[in-house]
């Protein structure tokens, strides 16, 4: 390795290591007071969000204004990894979050300071053990199942958009999604679905997620459609192969 290259590599390593040490990611400290959180959130915002959403969160040609979306929207979008957007497309996919929860809270505090909006729900608001599964099922079938499928497996919308699967979504993020209506999803405010009814829906979702698949494979859990397809393709192929083997000549 030529000396110049070695120097560059060393410098990069030092820089990277130094950033890792100094970056706020490593600091899991008690929640600072509100104005400090807003200040830090603004710094994070300017660094990671402002290129699309504008320096004052006023929105841009491809990004909505964030004034008044509330802390819950930030917690959902950043907490599920949808934001920051990796690349523009029909819809932001769920991916591992880029920021720590502490950073997300700071971002949320900054956005919440710009205008009134729904706050991040408290744990007791989305605790599924307090929900009525049966009531939640009724509400889910009326309001959610048309897009997210009767068992929360998700489904297609128009022009490449889709309703995502609800597998592995935390109760807090489900609550925030109902409250804020991310992307294509309609908003279900507290006067339409009360906090108790939101808890019921969350209880229903977590309950059906935990139900086992007796056959071993869920097959998308969409019932006889996928099951019939598998039986038809795999079963028929096996039967045809078996019939050929039975009729084959001894060699």
């Amino acid at each position, binding site marked *: 390795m030529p000396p110049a290259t070695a120097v560059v590599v060393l410098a990069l390593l030092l820089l990277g290591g130094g950033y890792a040490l100094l970056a706020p990611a490593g600091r899991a400290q008690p929640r600072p007071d509100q104005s400090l959180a807003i200040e830090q959130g603004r710094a994070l915002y300017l660094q990671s969000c402002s290129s699309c959403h504008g320096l004052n969160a006023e929105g841009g040609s491809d990004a909505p204004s964030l004034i008044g979306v509330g802390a819950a929207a930030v917690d959902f979008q950043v907490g599920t990894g949808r934001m920051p957007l990796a690349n523009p497309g029909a819809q932001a996919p769920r991916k591992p979050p880029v920021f720590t929860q502490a950073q997300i809270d700071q971002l949320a505090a900054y956005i919440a300071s710009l205008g009134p909006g729904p706050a991040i729900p408290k744990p007791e608001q989305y605790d599924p053990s307090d929900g009525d599964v049966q009531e939640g099922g*009724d*509400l889910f*079938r*009326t*309001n959610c199942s*048309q*897009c997210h499928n009767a068992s929360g497996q998700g*489904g297609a*919308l*128009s022009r490449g*958009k889709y*309703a995502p699967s609800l597998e592995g979504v935390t109760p807090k993020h489900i609550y925030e999604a109902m409250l804020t*209506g991310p*992307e*294509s*999803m*309609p*908003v*279900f*405010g507290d*006067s*339409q*679905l009360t906090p108790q*009814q939101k808890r019921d829906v969350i209880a229903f979702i977590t309950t059906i997620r935990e139900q086992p698949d*007796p056959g071993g494979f869920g097959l998308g859990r969409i019932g006889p459609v996928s099951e019939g397809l598998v039986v038809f393709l795999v079963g028929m192929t096996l039967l045809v192969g078996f019939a050929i083997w*039975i*009729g084959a*000549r*001894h*060699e």
Partner: protein
Amino acid sequence: MSDRDEPKTSYDAGGDIRKRLRSPAPISGQGSPEENEAVSVADARAGSRGGGVEGEGAVLRGGQQGAPGGGVGAYEQRFVQEAGTAPSRHVGSQAAAEPPEEVYPAPVETPPRKTDVDPAAAKRLERIIAALFLLPVLGVILVFFAVIRWQPAEDGLVALRAQNMLIGIALFLALGGIGAGAVAWARGLMSAQEWVQKRHPFTSSDEEIDGTVNDLQAGIADSGLPRRSLIKRSLGLSLGILPLAALPLLRDLGPLPYKKLRTTAWKRGARLVDEGTGQPIKLGDLRIGGMATVIPPGVHSHTELAKAAALLIRTRPGELRGDTRQKWTVDGHVAYSKICTHAGCPISLYEQQTKHLFCPCHQSTFDIVDGAHVVFGPAARPLPQLPIAVDKDGYFVATSDFREPVGPSFWERG
């Protein structure tokens, strides 16, 4: 029946009869010598063309032990010998001469299997087959065990699942044992050699074909149909007009929809009730970007609900434009029928960013802020808009029924 004496060859059954009907052969006592001549030429041509069809035997391949039991194989062998000693069973046909043997591929010789040469191996396989055939006994015992062991009515879903699983496994053992035994029997013990089964030709004899053709021609000549055009045309007319009698009968197959498809349960003053919560919706309950499925209060008939289901959607103030009837909206709230105008599927895949309503059945897409007109897909009409207002208590109410029929097109819709 035929009085002709020229030699006949075999027939290509259907095509030949049609040809002979077009250029009729002489019936006994009728016809001129020229016609006779023409027919014989046609016959000769047909005979030379159909050369590949006649023949006494066809080789059946591949069925070395397809049928259970050894009886069929033995029968085929006897049949081959019989056919060999008396080659022409088809007495009437002069084309019955044995075709050249090399036309048919010889049966493939199959090398002997282990069970063919080693009686001990055959005996072992026999025991295995017997064991497979006894599996159903075990299966039936397991079925009885499963039914007695678990009482799903008392023990719940887990017991039901276990019982189903065990019954399935037991029946698989039972049916699979019989099947596997039969397959092992056929592949291992029954003869693996190919057999030749000879068959007689499929065509009728010359006498039968001639007789049929002559009978038909005699019948046509006797009816005088070609001459009596009045009878022919009047018969054609009556046959053509007869199906019209079925039309009034078809019309009576079901009641006409009359007003049923034109009206729904919405009426002036009916509150918009959230289908999920059962609560009437107040102005302000929905947030901007919100959506609710609404039904009229006090309606329980599924037929009525299927027609009346509507969507109440809240948009930003001033966002509703175009063909939206503004007088039927309240402060950015607009209500549309939930029933797709294409095939009647319920639509509520509302994409609140694009303000599009998307039908999952055939991808019809409606623009909510512009009179719900169709922006994509097979639907032919916008969704009917429900006129809404707010009553003195702040609840949303309909000011009338839908002003046009909801749902897909129907014949009398107009």
